[in-house]
Structures are given as C-alpha cells and as structure tokens.
C-alpha cells in the first residue's frame, strides 16, 4: 500500500476492483465503512461477482474476468475527453510533459521492438528524447505531439464506452456511472483510494492492470494524499515483509536486485542501479544504491567483504534468467532439479495445474518440508483416491518433514500491507518437538558449514565466511536478527557536512539509512528496514496509538518503512508551492524553512519549493511515470489483451491481429500453450476466489472454520444453471483442459450473465479452500484446473481468468 489501512477513512471515493476486502480483509474493510459514515464517502465496486464488498457499495458494475485494463483504459479516455484531470498535479508531478523518441509507436496492439520468436520486446525505442546535457526534453504546454500526454490521449481514444461494453460486458450506462463517480475526485480537495488484491495480480497482464489503476490515480491527482493512493491488499500476514527482505529469485533485501551474469564487475552492477537524474535538481534517490549495497555485503560477509575484493561481489550468484516458481516447476518437471525445500508453503495446492506440480515433485531426489501443519505437498506421494490418484511405490522421492512453530510460539515482527513492522511476543511452547524457523535454518546452515570446513567442496568461501555472530549459533534470537537488518556502525560515522560530529559511534545501531556509507564503515541487512531497531531500542514494539492530528497517522504505533513514513510520496499532498491541496487532510507542508506536518516528509527536509524537487524521489525523473520507457517487459503503456484462455475467439480491440490476442510478452513453456482450452470445448469464463470463513489452505485444518464452511462448491448464475439443468446443490463436474473437479453447485444471483462482443458470456466462480488434508471434508484442489502461465513481468500465475466446461455429474 502507498497508504495504510486506517488512512482509508480519509477517502471521498473508494474504488474496490480486483479485490474483495469485505470478505478477504474484513477488519481492514471497516475503514471503508468508517469513510462512508464519517466522510460521506462513496464506495464503487467493479467485480465479476456481486461480492459482499459489492453489497456494501453505493454502486456496483459487473465486468468479465480478465478485462480490467479495458475498463480502466476506458476511464482514462473518459477523464481526458471530459477534462476531468487534476491539471496542476499532472503537469508538475507526472511525466505527461516529457517528450518521447520519434521512433516510438504502437500498431494493432503491438509496441515497437517486438520479437515474435522470442516473445520479447527491445525497449530502446520507448525512451525519452534527451537534450545535450542528458536530461529529458519536456514541453510544459503538453501540446507536443510526442509528449506523453498526447501519446496517452491517442492510445486510449480507442477505449470508448462502447468498446468497454464490448470487451468487459459492462453495460455502457453502468460504466459511465462509475466514470462520473470517480471523476469527482479530479478536484484538488477530493480524493479517491483504490483497493486491489489478487484479482489484479493473478493475470497474464496483472502488472499492467495495476499500472492502469495507478495512471487513473495520477491523472486525478490522488497519489501521495491522505485518503488516496494505490493500495495493494496483500494476501498473507508477511508476504510484504518477505518481499521487502528480497526472498525472490532475482532480489536482494530492500528491492536491490541480484546481478546478471553480464555484470562481472561491481562498477557495472552499481552504475546500472545508481540512476542519474533525468531532470535538473531531482533527488533520484537510488543514487545512494552503493551505500545500501556495500552495507548489505558487510552485514553478510563482514571482514571478508573488502574494497579489494569488490565487497565480496563474487559471493553473490549471478542470474542468466529468472527462477520464479513456474520456471522452477518447469525445470523440476523436466528432471533438472534434484532437491527442494518448502518452508511454510504448500505448492501442490497453491500452484497452477496440479497434475504438473505433483508430476514435478515426483521427479525430485529429495524434498524437505518445514511447516506447522500437515500439508498436501508433504504427502503428494500418498494416494487419496480421486483427490490425489498417485502410486506411492512409483515415487522415488525421499521426503523429510520437519515441524515448525506458529505465530503464537515465537517472538518477531510481521510487516502488514500498510508497511507497518509490528513486533509480537511468544505466548506458549510449541507442540511436541516443533522448532522455530530460525533454529531450523541455523541447524541446517551450521551443519553444511561444518562439512565445508572439514571436507572443502565447491566454492566454500561464501558459506564459511558468512557472518554468524549469534550468541547461540544454533538458534539466532529474533532480537539479534532484527538488529542486524536494521544496521549498525562498524566505525564512527560522521556528518558529511561537519566531520568532527559523530552521528553513530562504532558498534552503535544506526538511526536510519541516511547514516549508511559505501566505504565499509556500516553494515545493514535491509536498508529500507534501517531505523526499525535504533540505539533507543526496538521501534517495531512501540504501542502508543495516539493520533494527534485526527487523520489516522499513529506515528508512534509500531514502525513503518521507510523511515517510519506512513504515506509514500506525501510531498505530492501539497501543491508545487508547498501548500496542502486540502488543509483538512494536511500531511506535509513547507513551513518557510523545512517540510513538516502529520507524517515524516517524503522529501529532502530543506528542499525549497522553488527548487522544483519532484515528489517521486525514487525515480530518475522526480515525477511519476504515466508512460514507462523502461521497467515493464510488455509495453510502456497498458494495452488490453485477452486472458490466455478466453471465452472469445478474438481480442475485440485488435480483432485482426492474432499476435495481440493474449499478452505477447508473457512467457509460455513448451507444452503449456497446447494445453490452453479453446471456447468450443471450454466455453465458460472461470475465476478462483476466497471465502470469508477460510484462509487459503490453512483453515481447513481448523475445527471452527471447517464447521462454518465444511464443503467444497462452485458458484454459477441462474441462467447458466437453467441452461444446463443444474439445480442448487446438484453434483457437477467442472473441467478444464488440465483436469477436472467434482463438487456441488451453488446457484446464485451474484454472478450475472453478461454480453461481450455480441456473445452471451457465463462465468463460473471456484472457491479454493479444499484439499485432501485437513479436518474439513475432502475436496479437489481448485488449481487442478488453472493454467500454467504467469504475468509477463512478475510470473504470478493466471488464476483469475481461464475457461472451463461444467456438466451435471
């Protein structure tokens, strides 16, 4: 979230799209009702199903699964065509005035630079035009035909209300009603928040859906304001934290990235990431990358990381490509992976195309499970009748299952969606012999290290030199680990403006990332978490809920990254002169000497407004990017593509170009393309979803939740039910080109029939919570049906839009 849960109460309009907070995040959703009751806010919900969020809404519009870019692109067209944008904000805080290269173009849904054989773009022609000093050329009037404003006007002019109706199935009148409600927030004193979740991420064009939403918010001037922002409602209690800490194939902590194999020297690696400003006076804060990186290497390799050995740069593995989970299971399926360790994760249930996942695990030599619960993955080799029809005697995988503790049995911090790191305390001992994850990881590590110390082996250096300063090497304490990622001074850190002034003495915790250095004098395991544990102690454990400004900014409750800042880009909550757009919701303002207010300013504290330092300090431009010259693999602007499995045979936006049917830059493995279903055999659009009584695949192990929702079902609308002769409670068989599930049908009014491109489209809703382990009734893994393809940028699987057939069983 750019903002945080409590802040939702400050909104005038709330758009929930690609999520269902009332059921999936109920205690966070209460801030929507708070906004409705106390701020007269209007709630707009756009969803294929009439969810409980929709039931609470002031206006609901239906949409076909997987068509959100068409809908949001239509909103962009409406805002531009009806002059409903926040002009001053757009001009000063976005790249609308930047001029793009003459060679840029987009034709029939394909951007320039496309290589069809590789399914990849070369983005060199998406760049800005640069002046002789290397700065981007801008046209303040925004009239230049190649400036971003004119490019997006042309690009989205195709997204008319009629086209939205054709693609999305949303009646034109309903679409226009949503546009009108949203457009009221183009006034500087009104603000809208967007709340989204997996309904936007789990698509082959998910990243671009989110970007389209962000573009709408930028045009309305709603980013950086209290009650505004782009608010991702993350699915689990600490996937925000684990992402922040870089536990992904290509990441390092704090959104630093692993080197590619072509970056053989540290200078090449750093130069690409320490971005030079693209406009005069901009902060381009990633220029500090070397400080964060060297401090990180010092945290992990201590004295073994020296200026002479490029801070142990060779210790980091170098990438030739991404090894995300889809790539990993593809390799496993091909027999190229021997060992796999799953910590608190259940891939048999969570990943697409269950048959492929179980087949892949069956080819492993060894599998290690670390979990508090008996998951499906840990027993993938066991026969559970129709739910898991395998032959154990043919599966040669060795499996080790290790019991771990749960939240109640450990100390530590979790990072919520609002970026708050909240400390929690142990309340009981774990059952049996269960051990905490840090203890399990430490045991595995110290034993592997001992083997390398004794017998040598392949490149032991990064293992034997890894810092391990913990009082009990077999069980590092959460306090020690938190202090390590927050960072400390290894030598005295002095003020660059006054070298006689010591900011942090050797051995002390640093106060924040501003004190990190690139000369090896500081260590910090995760720069964005720097300041979470200072000399004053554990900031994450703070429990003062005072809200002195009355707008929900509890700065002394827990600790938020970065720098305890609660709302990102909050400089944009004030106009270019430093005066808040809305004095009632003041976040920061220029006092005449400095930036101050109810939040930690997201700006150099002494940057005078007349210096024109842009509020988007992490970008080289200093402003937000409506058009992205680099960073997205599938285009500088979002374009509507059909899901890989669609009930339509062509993409109505570009009907004559087969290349632009589904995301042309999404990676598809050999064999998976052939498994995509076609509308003749699988005519119905399907989506998976969650119920309020259950949490993913965990609560089927919990008695009360299993009682509340004991049995698997699928949800269909009345018209489809009548056409198929299915009554409420009838047993049905749902098939995709990858498998089948058998369960009961729940016939509701919540899923309406819509008309797209002149064709009636029926949609099928598939709750995900069942499996073959647990105390609830057994059910089929919903992901038996889902396709093995991910978003082009993130490789997040397309769980939210695929096709099925349904028959009475």
């Amino acid at each position, binding site marked *: 979230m750019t903002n945080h849960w*409590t802040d939702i109460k400050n909104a005038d309009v709330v758009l929930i799209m690609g999520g269902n907070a009332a059921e999936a995040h*109920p*205690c*966070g959703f*209460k801030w929507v009702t708070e906004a409705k009751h106390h701020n007269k806010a209007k709630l707009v919900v756009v969803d294929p199903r009439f969810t409980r969020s929709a039931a609470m809404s002031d206006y609901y519009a239906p949409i076909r699964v997987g068509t959100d870019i068409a809908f949001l692109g239509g909103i962009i067209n409406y805002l531009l065509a009806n002059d409903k944008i926040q002009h001053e904000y757009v001009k000063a805080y976005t790249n609308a005035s930047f001029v793009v290269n003459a060679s840029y173009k987009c034709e029939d849904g394909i951007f320039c630079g496309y290589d069809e054989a590789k399914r990849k773009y070369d983005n060199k022609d998406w760049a800005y035009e640069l002046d002789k000093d290397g700065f981007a050329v801008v046209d303040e009037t925004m009239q230049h035909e190649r400036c971003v404003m004119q490019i997006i006007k042309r690009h989205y002019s195709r997204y008319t209300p009629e086209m939205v109706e054709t693609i999305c199935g949303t009646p034109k009148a309903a679409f226009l009603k949503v546009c009108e409600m949203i457009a009221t927030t183009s006034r500087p004193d009104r603000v809208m928040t967007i709340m989204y979740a997996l309904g936007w991420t789990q698509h082959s064009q998910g990243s671009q859906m989110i970007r389209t939403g962000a573009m709408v918010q930028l045009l309305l001037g709603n980013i950086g304001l209290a009650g505004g922002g782009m608010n991702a*409602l*993350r699915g*689990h*209690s*600490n996937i925000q*934290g684990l992402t922040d*800490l870089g*536990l992904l*194939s290509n990441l390092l902590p704090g959104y630093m990235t*692993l080197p590619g194999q072509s970056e*053989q020297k540290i200078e090449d690696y750093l130069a690409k990431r320490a971005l030079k400003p693209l406009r005069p006076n901009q902060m381009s804060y990633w220029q500090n990358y070397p400080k964060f990186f060297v401090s990180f290497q010092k945290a992990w390799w201590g004295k073994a990381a020296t200026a002479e050995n490029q801070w142990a740069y*060779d210790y980091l*593995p170098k990438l*030739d490509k991404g090894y995300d*989970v889809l790539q990993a299971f593809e*390799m496993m399926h091909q027999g190229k992976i*021997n*060992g796999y*360790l799953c*910590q608190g994760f259940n891939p048999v249930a969570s990943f697409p195309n269950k048959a492929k996942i179980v087949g892949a695990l069956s080819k492993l030599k060894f599998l290690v499970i670390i*979990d508090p*619960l008996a998951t499906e993955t840990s027993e993938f080799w066991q026969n559970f009748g129709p739910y898991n029809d395998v032959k*154990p005697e*043919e*599966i040669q995988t*060795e499996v*080790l299952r*290790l*019991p771990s503790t749960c*939240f109640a049995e*450990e100390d530590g911090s*979790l*990072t*919520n*969606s609002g970026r*708050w790191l909240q400390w*929690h305390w142990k*309340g*009981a001992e774990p059952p049996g012999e*269960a*051990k905490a994850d*840090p203890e399990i990881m430490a045991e*595995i590590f110290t034993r*592997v290290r001992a083997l390398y110390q004794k017998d040598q082996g*392949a490149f032991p250096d990064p*293992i034997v030199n890894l810092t391990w300063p913990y009082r009990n090497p077999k069980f*590092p304490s959460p306090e020690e680990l938190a202090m390590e990622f927050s960072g400390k001074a290894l030598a005295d850190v002095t003020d660059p403006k006054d070298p006689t002034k010591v900011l942090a003495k050797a051995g002390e915790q640093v106060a924040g990332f501003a004190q990190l250095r690139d000369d090896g004098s500081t260590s910090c395991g995760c720069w964005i978490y720097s300041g979470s544990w200072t000399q004053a102690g554990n900031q994450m454990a703070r429990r003062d*809920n005072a809200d002195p400004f009355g707008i929900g900014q509890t700065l002394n*409750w827990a600790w938020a990254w970065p720098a305890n800042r609660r709302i990102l880009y909050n400089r944009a909550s004030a106009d270019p002169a430093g005066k808040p757009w809305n004095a009632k919701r003041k976040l920061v303002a220029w006092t005449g000497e400095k930036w101050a207010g109810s939040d930690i300013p997201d700006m150099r504290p002494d940057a005078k407004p007349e210096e024109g330092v842009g509020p988007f300090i992490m970008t080289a431009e200093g402003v937000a990017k409506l058009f992205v010259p680099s960073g997205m693999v599938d285009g500088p602007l979002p374009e509507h593509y059909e899901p890989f499995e669609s009930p339509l045979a062509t993409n109505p936006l570009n009907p004559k170009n087969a290349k632009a049917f589904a995301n042309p830059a999404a990676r598809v493995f050999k064999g998976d393309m052939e498994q995509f279903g076609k509308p003749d055999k699988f005519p119905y659009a399907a989506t998976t979803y969650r119920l309020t009584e259950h949490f993913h695949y965990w609560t089927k*192990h*919990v*008695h009360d*939740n299993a009682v509340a929702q004991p049995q698997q079902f699928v949800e269909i609308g009345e018209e489809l039910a009548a056409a198929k002769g299915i009554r409420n409670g009838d047993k049905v068989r749902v098939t995709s080109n990858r498998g089948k599930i058998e369960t009961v049908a729940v016939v509701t009014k919540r899923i309406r029939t819509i008309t797209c491109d002149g064709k009636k489209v029926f949609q099928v809703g598939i709750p995900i919570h069942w499996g073959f*382990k647990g105390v609830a009734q057994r059910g089929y893994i919903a992901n038996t049906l889902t396709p093995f393809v991910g978003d082009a940028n993130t490789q997040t699987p397309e*769980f939210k839009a695929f096709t099925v057939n349904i028959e009475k069983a």
Partner: protein
Amino acid sequence: MDMNRRQFFKVCSAGIGGSSIAALGFSVKPALAEARNFKLARTTETRNTCPYCSVGCGIIMYSLGDKSKNVKAEIIHIEGDPDHPVNRGTLCPKGAGLMGFIHSENRLKHPEYRAPGSKEWKRISWDEAFGKIAKLMKDDRDKNFVAKTDDGLTVNRWLTTGFLAASASSNESGYITHKVVRSMGMLVFDNQARV
C-alpha cells in the same frame, strides 16, 4: 482514572468483595452469590499479530501459567486487541478461529521421514533429520555448482536445489532464511508473494 486492562480486571474482581458496591445502594449478598471470578483474570496476556491476512490485526492471547520456570503455558483464549489502531478489538471469522489453528490436530509434532517408494512416514530424531539434509544439500551442491559459464563468466550459482520460503513467518525468520539460502548460491528461490 488511568487504568490498563489488567488493572481493570483486578479492580473488578477485588471490588466485588469490598463495600463499594454496597455504598452505591446495592445489597452485597446477591452480588456475592452471582459473581465468579472472570476466568481470564488469572491468565497471562501476550500481545501478538494475527498470522492470516495482511491487515495485521493486533490480538491478545490469554494463557494459563505465568511463564515461570517449569510452567508450560497453554493458550486458552484469543481476542482482538482493543488498543490496536486498525482492528480496534475486532476479529474476522478467520481470526476468531485462531485458537483452533494453534491446537489443530494436524499440527506436526516430530520430524518424519518417507523413504523412496514407501507408503508411510517413519519418525526420526532432529539430529538424524538435520544430518541427512546437510549431506543431501552438500552432495548436490558439490556435484552441480556452476562457478563459471562455458564462456568464462563467473556466476557461482547452484540451480539443482531450490527453496520456497513462507508467507507468515516473521521478518527475522525470513532474513536468516535468505542469508542461508543465498550464501549457498541458490537462485531457484521464491516466497508466497510470487503467487
């Protein structure tokens, strides 16, 4: 009057036996006959965070036992933390069942091993489990570690073993997990955020 929750419970339970209620015009006798000590008054309160979705609701866990040595604490009740600025004491249908997660009959209790082709688990000791895992990992790493590519680039990567990290483990668990996994050169590494 400034009073935290614990003090409030104490005053309530202690006050019944005193005369303050009588002073308000109640008869003490029926009150004494009705009152039982509130069960939670004798428990230990521990602050925690709901491990399900990303709202991060504050919870209070009530356990029997005072955490002194040789006392094994047992959590008997969980409720929303009224001081928490987001959930303000509430819990959703998922969070309201947290007790059942802690005490689920499907909690794993000891390390187990499934041999190739076997239909069953065999209980093993932690020492045996860790010993096996360390050896399996080192053997595979030594055999398949790629120090250099064919064209001479230094890459120091290990691609034949992968790791999938959790979604509800603490930042501290995540940090030490990353440190261990990456120091070995693993790239096949993701967490739940990927899906």
